[in-house]
């Protein structure tokens, strides 16, 4: 039982003290059983206060500490480290959340907030009195990282990790790497194309012996935890053997294939065969057969002996210490009829327009055989929705559109560009592109938030109308040969990775980091990091920066061969256990077994501390460290008994 507890109540520079009378809290808890000192502090987390705490612990022989401040998600780690520096065990520290769960939600009721803060601090004191010192468990780590997604973020992270001497498994669901950037072609701010960028990354990956690349590979299972994940992949075959050098016979095989389907690489504006390439110079340079559309007619196999329609799906098991998720985004798919999409035949998405530009010959731009002169761009399609789920701004699209339009001018000088915007967001240096476009005659219009632009069919003409802010509410209309819907980013649909890894999503449905500034690439699942646009819209540079930050964090989980893990595990009292098997069945990790004494026993290094075994035990023989009956029930007693 702890007898000399130090209690610190943080003002959080007003975040707490504006609503909670912190001095009153201090007075109320100063005489709780076991409390040796109770103080208030403007910033508990500041270095000067941390030093003072260390000094207090030493000077007053404190044996346990409570800090009442923000959510433990932010600074529990900080203060555990403080008490450790002063020579205490970090589990003799309890964090009381009086900001996110008191001062903020109860800012409308100062008296109630203060009362609740007092109760919460008292409960924390009650818990820390019963706290015991426990030593962290050491586990061996597998010095390998699984990188999911071979777009630019995943590839860059894989390269960075491999350079640190770590084994990297780079896994791509598609049969070709490069992700969205491979489909991008023009990028802004430099003259490097997406394809060039992808090919540089690919070449570095294949020449690196630390990286193993799997294409057509899907994560289907993940077990274990930080330091030791056991993952299972499903490897879908290409049905084309090796890397086919015999381009001529492969060409013939494609020619004879009778099946034609929309080519998703070109977002459906062209067709491809069931056996296909992405584009000339794709990576890896090998064709693939799409078994969802293949009729197994066998014509291709007759002209090319590299084709083997009997290849089987294989499973592969890998062990890794950390997982870096870089699964990217999907372009938003407009609903049928949204700004004429799929209803009016010269309405396309920005993605489709970019592909059209990429494969059209210079000269005169054509769409479905008709010349294109006037292009209308409708911005914020699927982003900043007034009605609809996507409230967020997709960040990349204003710049990408203006850049695409400028680059289109180089290839097709006769085009006229009309931008139907909701306020241009070419942030930072990208502003220069907006400036250049305005100067070179692009027309920018801006609609009201509650009165979006409209795309209409009038006879054989497509008309875009706007109630324009910039010309003082004038109703304007443009006859467009092509309407380009500037679609935002949405999280990947059909992302089974999220379900398998249990990654939490934010309000925008993208994967969520623990804290945007404190731990921007980590997830609540220890050992799993996130990079690139799976976390939210980003441009190329921002994706690369986040990939490298995630890589350095993943490296910290696998860089050393041992890793300290939380010793919060279940414990069986052998005197109470009557061996009934219920706990072993409840345990999702197979951590409990019957030992030689014939009672249940928990394997420390396998137990994840979830506590699922606790309520099923008929004799209440199981306790979870730091969540024991004594601790929880003393908290309940204090909280129930209001002062």
């Amino acid at each position: 039982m702890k007898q000399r507890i130090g209690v610190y109540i943080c003002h959080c520079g007003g975040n707490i003290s504006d609503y909670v009378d912190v001095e009153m809290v201090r007075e109320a808890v100063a005489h709780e059983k076991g409390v040796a000192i109770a103080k208030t502090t403007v910033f508990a987390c500041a270095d000067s206060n941390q030093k003072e705490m260390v000094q207090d612990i030493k000077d007053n022989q404190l044996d346990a500490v409570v800090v009442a401040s923000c959510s433990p998600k932010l600074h529990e780690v900080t203060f555990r480290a403080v008490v450790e520096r002063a020579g205490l065990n970090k589990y003799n520290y309890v964090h009381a959340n009086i900001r996110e769960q008191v001062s903020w939600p109860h800012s409308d009721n100062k008296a109630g907030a203060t009362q609740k803060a007092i109760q919460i601090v008292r409960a924390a004191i009650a818990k820390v009195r019963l706290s015991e010192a426990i030593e962290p468990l050491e586990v061996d780590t597998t010095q390998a990282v699984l990188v999911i997604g071979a777009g630019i973020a995943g590839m860059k992270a894989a390269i960075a990790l491999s350079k640190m001497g770590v084994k990297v498994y780079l896994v791509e669901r598609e049969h070709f790497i490069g992700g969205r950037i491979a489909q991008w072609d023009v990028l802004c701010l430099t003259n490097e194309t997406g394809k060039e960028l992808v090919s540089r990354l690919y070449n570095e990956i294949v020449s690196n012996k630390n990286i193993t690349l799997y294409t057509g590979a899907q994560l289907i299972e993940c077990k274990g935890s930080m330091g030791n994940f056991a993952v299972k992949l499903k490897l879908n075959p290409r049905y084309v053997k090796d890397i086919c050098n015999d381009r001529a016979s492969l060409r013939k095989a494609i020619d004879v294939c009778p099946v034609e389907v929309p080519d998703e690489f070109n977002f459906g504006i062209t067709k491809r065969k069931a056996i296909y390439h992405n584009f000339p110079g794709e990576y890896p340079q090998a064709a693939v057969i799409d078994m969802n559309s293949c009729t197994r007619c066998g014509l291709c196999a007759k002209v090319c002996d590299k084709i083997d329609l009997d290849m089987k799906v294989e499973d592969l098991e890998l062990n890794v210490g950390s997982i870096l998720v870089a699964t990217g985004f999907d372009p938003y798919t407009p609903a049928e009829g949204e700004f004429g999409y799929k209803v009016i035949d010269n309405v396309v998405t920005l993605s489709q327009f970019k592909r059209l530009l990429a494969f059209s010959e210079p000269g005169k731009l054509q769409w479905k055989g008709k010349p294109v002169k006037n292009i209308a761009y409708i911005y914020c399609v699927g982003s900043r929705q007034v009605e609809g789920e996507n409230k967020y701004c997709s960040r990349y699209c204003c710049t990408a559109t203006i850049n695409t339009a400028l680059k289109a001018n180089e290839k097709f000088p006769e085009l006229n560009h009309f931008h139907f915007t909701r306020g241009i967001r070419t942030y930072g240096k990208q502003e220069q592109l907006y400036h250049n476009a305005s100067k070179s005659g692009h027309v920018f219009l801006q609609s009201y938030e509650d009165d979006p632009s409209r795309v209409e069919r009038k006879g054989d003409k497509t008309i875009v109308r706007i109630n324009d802010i910039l010309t003082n509410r004038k109703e304007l209309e443009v006859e467009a040969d092509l309407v380009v819907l500037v679609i935002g980013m949405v999280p990947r649909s059909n992302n089974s990775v999220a379900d398998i890894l249990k990654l939490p999503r934010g309000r925008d449905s993208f994967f969520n980091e623990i804290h945007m500034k404190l731990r921007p690439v980590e997830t609540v699942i220890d050992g799993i990091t996130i990079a690139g646009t799976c976390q939210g819209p980003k441009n190329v540079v921002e994706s690369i920066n986040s990939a490298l930050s995630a890589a350095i964090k993943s490296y910290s989980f696998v860089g050393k061969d041992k890793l300290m893990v939380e010793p919060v595990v279940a414990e069986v009292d052998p005197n109470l256990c009557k061996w009934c098997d219920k706990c072993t069945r409840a345990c999702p990790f197979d951590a409990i077994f019957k030992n030689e004494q014939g009672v249940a026993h928990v394997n420390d290094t396998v137990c994840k501390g979830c506590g699922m075994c606790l309520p099923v035990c008929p004799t209440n023989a199981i306790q979870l460290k730091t969540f024991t009956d004594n601790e929880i029930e003393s908290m309940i007693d204090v909280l129930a008994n209001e002062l």
Partner: protein
Amino acid sequence: MNVTKNARILVFSTVKISDPAIDMAGLLKLHYSPKVYTISVPCSSAVKPRWILRALAKGFDGVFIAADGTDCPYGESCTEKTGEIVKKTHQLMKESNIDPVRLKMAAICSVCSESFIKHINSFNDTLLKLKTTE
């Protein structure tokens, strides 16, 4: 102080899933009754019936389990297991003549702040009605 206006509620929340949602309710300045207290556990399937019964015996008007639901990082069976706990505790409550409505469970995902507030407010109303009829 609005002591009479609000029921006293103990919430069992989970460190990785429902705690962030409750924290975010604070961040978004969504208000709820200050008589709502939370105790965090790793997983909602770890809540022992005796803790719930003790809370009710010691003076809480109600206990709310903010469950992990399908987001549970520890396993698929969480929803079912937490449901079992509630069922078992309801049984024990009936045996002790405690109205089972005083224990409620709902899955609260890591961004379900608004849903948390809705649940807590309606639970609060239920408990207050119960108090006045008693």
